[in-house]
C-alpha cells in the first residue's frame, strides 16, 4: 500500500497548479461564457503539448503510457479553477476508441486530439436512456459496404465543437439488449449530421446531435459489430472516475474558500468562524472532502482493474461519495457565504453549478448506488 505521489507525479501536479494559477484563473471561464465554443483552442493546444491529454493512454496508440492516476491528478487541479477545455469528453471518447478499436484506428483517430489540435466527443446518451449506455435506440443499418446511422443523441459533452464523434448505435437487438451495440467514429462534417449547440449550467456548451441517415464506412466501426457494450461501459466508467477527480478539485476549492470566508468575514463584531455551529458545519464539509479524496483515489486506481465487477463497484462507490459529498460541501459553501453566495458575481456559485453537472455526468448518485447494490460482489462473502 502506497498513497504517495512519485517525484514525477509531484512535478506534474506543480505544473498544473502553476498553469491554473497563472494562465487559467476562474476569470477565463467567465470570459468564455458567451463564446460559442466556450473553451480556447490555444489553451487546448498547450495542454496537448504538455502531454496532459495523452498522459494515461498507451504508448502503442501515441500516448505517454501513464496510469489513469496521472490524468486524475491533472483533472483535480483543473477543477480548482473550473478550466473549461474538453478534457473529460476527449478522454472518455479516447477510452472507447482504444478499448474497442484497432491500434491502427486508435492511432489515426487520436493523433489530432492528443496533440491538442482537435478534440473528441462521446455521443452515448439518448432522450430515453437516462444513464444506461445499453439503452440505445439510434440505429446503424447496413447500407452498401458501410452503414447508415439514424437517431438522436442528447447532451453530448463537447458535441458542439468536437472534430470526431464516437457514437453508439444499434446494429441488432431490441432496446436495452446488451448485445447488438456498435461504436462508430464519425466526422463532425459528415453529411446528415446536425449539431444543435446548447448551453449548460456550468458555463460550458454541449451538443444535441441528430443523425439523419449519416453514412459511415466499415472502417469507421470500432471493434466487432454488435459487441461494443463492454468498451462503452469502460469509457463511461472512466468518465465517471474523471468526474470524481475534477469534482475533488471543485470540492476542495469550495471548502477552502468557505474556511477563508469564515476566518475573514465579520458580523456582530467577531469573525463568523467563531460561531461554533458554523465551525462544525465547516468540519462536516472537511470530513466529506477527505472521504471524497479517499474514494477518488480508489476510483482512479480501479479504472484499469481487469475484474469488471471490481471496477464497477469501486467506481460506483466513488461516484456516490463524490455526489453526496460534493452536494453537501457546495450547498454548505453557499449557505456559509450567505447572500453573496447566491449572486452570479461570486465564484462560489460557479463551483456549485459545476458540481451539479459533474454529479449528473456518467450516472447520478442513485444510478450508481443501484448498480453497486446489484453487483454480484455485494452479496458475495456474506456467510460467516
Amino acid at each position, binding site marked *: 500500500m502506497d498513497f504517495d505521489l512519485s517525484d514525477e507525479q509531484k512535478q506534474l501536479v506543480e505544473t498544473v497548479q502553476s498553469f491554473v494559477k497563472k494562465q487559467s484563473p476562474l476569470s477565463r471561464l467567465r470570459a468564455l461564457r458567451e463564446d460559442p465554443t466556450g473553451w480556447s483552442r490555444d489553451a487546448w493546444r498547450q495542454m496537448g503539448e504538455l502531454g496532459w491529454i495523452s498522459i494515461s493512454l498507451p504508448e502503442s496508440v501515441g500516448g505517454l503510457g501513464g496510469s489513469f492516476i496521472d490524468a486524475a491528478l491533472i483533472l483535480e487541479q483543473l477543477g480548482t479553477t473550473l478550466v473549461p477545455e474538453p478534457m473529460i469528453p476527449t478522454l472518455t471518447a479516447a477510452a472507447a476508441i482504444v478499448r474497442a478499436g484497432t491500434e491502427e484506428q486508435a492511432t489515426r483517430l487520436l493523433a489530432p486530439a492528443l496533440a491538442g489540435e482537435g478534440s473528441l466527443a462521446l455521443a452515448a446518451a439518448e432522450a430515453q436512456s*437516462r444513464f444506461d449506455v445499453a439503452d440505445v435506440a439510434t440505429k446503424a443499418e447496413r447500407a452498401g459496404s458501410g452503414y447508415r446511422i439514424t437517431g438522436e443523441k442528447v447532451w453530448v459533452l463537447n458535441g458542439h465543437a468536437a472534430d470526431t464523434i464516437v457514437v453508439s448505435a444499434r446494429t441488432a437487438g431490441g432496446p436495452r439488449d446488451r448485445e447488438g451495440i456498435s461504436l462508430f467514429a464519425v466526422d463532425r462534417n459528415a453529411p446528415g449530421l446536425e449539431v444543435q449547440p446548447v448551453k449548460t449550467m456550468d458555463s460550458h456548451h454541449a451538443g444535441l446531435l441528430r443523425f439523419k441517415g449519416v453514412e459511415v464506412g466499415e472502417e469507421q466501426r470500432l471493434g466487432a459489430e454488435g459487441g461494443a457494450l463492454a468498451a462503452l461501459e469502460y469509457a463511461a466508467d472512466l468518465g465517471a472516475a474523471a468526474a470524481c477527480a475534477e469534482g475533488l478539485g471543485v470540492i476542495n476549492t469550495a471548502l477552502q474558500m468557505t474556511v477563508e470566508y469564515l476566518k475573514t468575514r*465579520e*458580523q456582530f463584531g467577531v469573525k463568523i468562524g467563531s460561531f461554533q455551529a458554523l465551525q462544525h458545519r465547516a468540519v462536516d464539509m472537511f470530513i466529506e472532502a477527505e472521504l471524497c479524496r479517499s474514494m477518488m483515489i480508489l476510483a482512479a486506481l480501479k479504472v484499469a482493474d481487469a475484474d469488471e465487477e471490481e471496477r464497477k463497484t469501486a467506481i460506483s462507490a466513488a461516484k456516490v461519495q463524490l455526489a453526496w459529498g460534493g452536494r453537501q460541501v457546495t450547498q454548505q459553501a*453557499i449557505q456559509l457565504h450567505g447572500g453573496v*453566495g*447566491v449572486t452570479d458575481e461570486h465564484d462560489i456559485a460557479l463551483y*456549485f453549478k459545476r458540481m451539479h*453537472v459533474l454529479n449528473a*455526468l456518467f450516472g447520478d448518485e442513485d444510478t450508481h448506488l443501484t448498480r453497486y447494490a446489484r453487483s454480484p460482489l455485494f452479496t458475495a462473502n456474506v456467510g460467516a
Partner: protein
Amino acid sequence: MDLSFSPEHLAFREEVRAFIASAMPPSLMTKAAADSHFEHDEVMEWHKILHRKGWVAPHWPAEVGGSSLDVTSRFILSEELELAGAPALSPFGLVMVGPLIIQFGTPEQKKRFLPRILSGEEVWCQGYSEPNAGSDLASLKTRAEDDGKGNFVVTGQKTWTTYAQYADWIFCLVRTDASAKKQSGISFLLIDLKTPGVTVKPFLTSGGTPAFSETFFEGAVVPKENLVGPLNGGWTLAKALLGHERTLIAAVGASIRAIRKVKRIAARTQKDGRPLLEDPLFRAKIARLEIKLRGLQMANYRAIAGAQLGRAPGPESSILKIRGSEIQQQCYELAMEAMGLASMSWFNEPGVVHPEEQWVPSLFNYLRATTIYGGTNEIQKNIIAKLILGIPDR
C-alpha cells in the same frame, strides 16, 4: 379538534379558483403552467387584476383599502394563488412597508402612500442589508444627517435591494445618531428613487435572473416628513415587521405545486424502460418529501387556526421559515434529479427541454437563497434556542 374547513371557507376557495381561471390572461396562464419567470410588467398586470377584485392586500384593514377577509380566507386566497402558479406580487409595498405605515405612519403618510401601493402605481423595494450588515443588520452604516432645512442627507450603500430597478420608492433603515450604540441610533426612512444622488445598479442572481440590485446614496436629500415612526426608533419598526403573520413564509402552496411537477417529470422520464415515477427509490424520495411537506402544512394550519383566534404566533410558527425554505430547495433538487442530464440545461431556446422544465435549473440555483434571506436559518435557530427553548447564551 377539526381539520376541515367550514362550508363558508370551502365556498370561498371555489370562488378564488373560479376567479383565477376566468381573470388570468392566457399569456400569464401559459407561463404559470410552466412555472416560468414572470417579467415585472407581467407581475404588475396581475397586480392590477387582483387590485380590481380587492385582493392585493387582504391583510390590510378594510378602512385603508384592505379587505374584511378573515385569517383563514386570506390563507386560502394565498394558497390558491400559489397553487395556480400566479405571479407572486411584489411583497415590499403590500406586505412590508404598507403594514408599517398603517401601524406607525402619520395620517398624511397613509394618505400619500397606501392608495398607490394598492393600485400598483408605485412600486417599492427594501433597503435594509448592506455589504457589511447582513445577519448583523444593526451594524448598518448608511447615514441620514439633518441638514437643518427640514431634510435628511443620506449617504451610503444598500444591497439586496431586490428588483430596485423596477421600483419607485425604497424604504430604508438608516443611521440618524452616529454616537448611539447599534440599534438605538437607527431610523426608518422612505426615499423616492428618483431623488438626485440615488443610483440603482442591478446584478444577477446565481439563477441568472436580474433580481438583485445595489442602491447607492450619495448625498440624497430626503424630506423629514418621510420619516416613519420616531427618530432613532427604526429598530422597533424593523422588529414589528418580523412579528407579522408567518404563515405565508412556509410557501406550502408553492411546494405542493413543485412536488406535483416532480411527479409529472418523473412520469414522462424513462428509466430502464419504465417511467422513473415507478422506480422504488425515486418514488420513496418523493414520498418522503411529500410527507415532510404534509407536516409543514399541518404546522401551518395550526398557526392559522391560532391566528384566526387572535393569538400571537406559537412555537409551531417559528419552524415554518426554517422548514419551508428547506423543503422548497429539496423540491427543486428532486426536480433536477428527475431531469437527469437535461438538468444541465441553462437558458436554452424553447424545445431543448420540456416547457415546464425550462426554469427548473435557474430556480434550483436561486432557491439556495431561501435559507439565507429573511434572516438565515442559523439566525432563526439562535432565536428559537433563546426565545422558545429558553437556553441562555454564555
